[in-house]
């Protein structure tokens, strides 16, 4: 007998659990590799599925094996002889070279240093954003329709058929059947077997006939009993119950302020965009409810959408304070501090119209910082400048001005970025989970 079984509809991803175990196991190596590979990615490719090469440290699977290179002698056979005669000599390939042709393929290449595989976007981002959070996030009021979540709430006697708790139901039924002495199928079979045996008996005496009718009675009663006492009674049925519970949410908004003026070259803009791209993904991934406001500015500021923020080109002079104005304006209009946690990240090359820096500082100190949970300023330098401004104290006008703000406010952070490789460490530093949290 042959069975053809269509398994294609069976659940896929049987290996997912094992894959996660593997990723967890190789976490340290993977994180290193992910950072390295993200560094060289183009803006649009950040967070795409990609190939990762990790060292096998931590995921080695050693086995005893023989090492014929280290000593001893052995013989082996190869196919495809063209010119060799007995007694000829063939130089050995140096170790490491083309896998030692002629050696039996060593199993699974254990001992090789690198292991290459593909990771999905989710896996990469999970690893990258691990241990990061928005600092100082506080729970705001619940007055906005709070989100609800379904929670288990025990077992009930009423519910929809899809929620039947089979185990509980069958357990109840089983107990009831025993308590009410419902004849079991094997009891019935036994009785019938007895009956059949009696009926087969030759010759039929009165005694046996009497037994037969008695047995028939018993069977009829048992049958009847089986009828009234259902196998599963509505009484037995239990349902899983769920209730809705409000989940307190914290609302937050992130203002992304980016300088796109003429002084920002392509390179600087690219760095800034990478930073925001990362920030954007981080927020989207970790905080479903976070609003993001994109503001870009030259000599005046505009609120733009995501697409425009990352992909459009614009140029002009530089007045940083316009962006701060814009931010305040939007905040007043849409994001009351009572209900919202307010965050801002600003990226600039540090140059602004003379005098504007002081204006910015005033605004920050007087209006913005009191509202904000956290304000990150990222200055984008080219590498030459980075060397010049090696110390934290020296820098362009805006940098020096912002240093004074940072001294006043603990939740104001300033960082510098001069090459793609800086972005990730800086990002991680800015959003590190605080120890006290």
């Amino acid at each position: 007998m042959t069975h053809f079984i269509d398994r294609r509809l069976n659940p896929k991803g049987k290996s997912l659990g094992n894959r996660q175990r593997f990723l967890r196991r190789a976490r340290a190596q993977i994180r290193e590799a992910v950072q390295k590979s993200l560094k060289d990615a183009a803006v649009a490719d950040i967070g795409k599925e990609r190939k990762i090469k990790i060292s096998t440290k931590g995921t080695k699977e050693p086995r005893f094996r023989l090492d014929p290179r280290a000593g001893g002698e052995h013989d082996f056979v190869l196919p495809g002889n063209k010119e060799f005669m007995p007694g000829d000599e063939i130089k050995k390939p140096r170790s490491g070279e083309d896998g030692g042709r002629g050696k039996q393929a060593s199993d699974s290449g254990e001992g090789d240093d690198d292991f290459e595989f593909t990771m999905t976007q989710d896996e990469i981002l999970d690893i990258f954003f691990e241990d990061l959070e928005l600092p100082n996030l506080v729970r705001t009021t619940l007055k906005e329709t709070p989100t609800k979540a379904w929670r288990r709430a025990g077992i009930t006697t009423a519910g929809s058929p899809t929620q039947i708790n089979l185990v509980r139901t069958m357990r109840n039924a089983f107990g009831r059947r025993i308590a009410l002495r419902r004849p079991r199928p094997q009891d019935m079979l036994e009785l019938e077997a007895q009956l059949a045996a009696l009926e087969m008996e030759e010759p039929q005496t009165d005694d046996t006939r009497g037994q037969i009718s008695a047995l028939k009675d018993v069977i009829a009663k048992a049958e009847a009993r089986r009828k009234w006492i259902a196998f599963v009674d509505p009484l037995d049925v239990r349902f899983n119950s769920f209730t809705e519970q409000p989940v307190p949410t914290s609302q937050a908004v992130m203002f992304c302020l980016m300088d796109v003026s003429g002084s920002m070259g392509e390179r600087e803009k690219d760095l800034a965009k990478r930073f925001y791209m990362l920030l954007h993904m981080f927020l989207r991934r970790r905080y479903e409810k976070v609003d993001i406001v994109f503001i870009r500015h030259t000599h005046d500021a505009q609120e733009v959408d995501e697409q425009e923020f990352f992909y459009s080109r614009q140029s002009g002079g530089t007045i940083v304070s316009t962006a701060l104005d814009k931010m305040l304006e939007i905040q007043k209009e849409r994001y009351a501090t009572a209900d919202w946690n307010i965050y801002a990240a600003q990226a600039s090359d540090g140059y602004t119209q003379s005098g504007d820096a002081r204006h910015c500082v005033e605004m920050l100190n007087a209006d913005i910082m009191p509202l904000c949970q956290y304000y990150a300023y990222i200055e984008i330098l080219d590498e030459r400048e980075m060397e010049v401004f090696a110390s934290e104290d020296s820098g362009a006008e805006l940098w020096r001005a912002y240093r004074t703000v940072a001294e006043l406010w603990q939740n104001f952070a300033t960082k510098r970025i001069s090459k793609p490789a800086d972005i990730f460490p800086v990002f991680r530093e800015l959003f590190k989970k605080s120890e006290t949290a």
Partner: protein
Amino acid sequence: MVTRPIAEKPLFTESGWDFAGLDCIYRAIEEIALNELKLDVYPNQIEVISSEQMLDAYSSLAMPLMYNHWSFGKLFAREETLYRGGYQGLAYEIVINSNPCISYLLEENTMTMQALVIAHAAFGHNHFFKNNYLFQQWTNAEGILEYLSFAKRYIAACEEKHGREDVEAILDSAHALMNEGVFRYRRPPKPSKERVLEKRRRRMQYEEESRNELWRTLPAGVEPPGAPPTTEIEEGAPAEMKLPEENLLYFLEKHSPALRPWQREVLRIVRNLAQYFYPQKQTKVMNEGCATFVHYTLMNALYDRGLITESSMLEFLHSHTSVVFQPEFDDRRFNGINPYALGYGMMADIKRICEQPTEEDRDWFPQFAGSGDTMAVLKDAWANYRDESFIEQFLSPKLMRDFRMFALHDEADEAAYKVSAIHNEQGYKRVRAALARQYDVGASDPNIQVAAANLTSDRKLLLEHRMHRGIPLHEQTRDLVCGHIERLWGHEVVLAEIADEDQVSQAE
């Protein structure tokens, strides 16, 4: 040859397949396989799966179910990358040595390929599994799936009870010793399956007894399913050590002072798996050769009867020839001797020797040259040989010439290999012996034994590696594996390499 009426029309003409078509072609193949080739097979269960499921199956050692472990995830990641990157195609099928014999067909195969795969797996491999002595003696086709499902649940329950890290650590160590976890020469003391069934029976009995008492609410403790209700130690007091012991996992399971009962059970699971796979390791060439020979014969028979079209025959031949392709040693594609090529080559050669022998064949194989009964010779070979003995017995000079085989002698301190024999009159025997040796797992696996264990004082465990022809263990992996053994033994472990001349060098 029996002449048969030519079918009026082929069974299929389209390249797509459906279940009715599969059933039809299966019957046709079955009819020829059972009545003409007289194959003896387990009942077949054929399952169609998607490519993702095939990848899943790959990474659980090609078994339909398997306990969870990160190393399978690693395997999956590698296979997936190779497949998606286009470096490697998927196997057309996977077949499992079980009763019923389960074969997986890939849904993307064409109808011709499905026919090929059914012939290959459901009849070729199946016959081999059922009849080869190694499989008969060492594996339990009836119980393997049940055992795996037990193993999976047991390990999952252990993880819940003892924490994932602890269980993974034990599995890591056990996996490291998988190759040393088999009985090579003697049978395991007791077949595992019966033990498990017995345990299960006892447990069910226990459950039934306790369940009847309705009024007593039993605390629902998490208990590994299949585990006996109370601690059940091995028959009698600590079993007597029989030394030397080649099966390290068995030894550790029985005698390690450091392991808890569930850890011993985990070792046993890994050991049973290792034992299950051991025959496959020793019969790669024969197993694939048998399946390939069978599918070739069956497909040709179908074609001769007009049951498949010329175009599917061509498609079949194309795929068949690429399966049995043997790159030469200096080819970039060379990756050892292709077991399909060698196995199929030898079996097709046996057929030739039976039917059209040359003088040379009569000299070399007087027992069956010209006997005409190919299937009898092949079936005897399939039943009673493993790769090593099969090659030693049946590799013919003609095949050595066809493969242009030559034997190399390698000494570790020499800068060059020496050609010791080639495919000529003086060399045939030596080439054949060298090739057979190459397939002898006894020689290619290190021979490691437990030599002594001091349970009374310092509990030092002494292992010995008896070197074969002076080849030592690979040093780095040796040290890593020794670390795993120490974890399982709980005390110091010393591995001594013993040379042929009894020179002893010690390693930690």
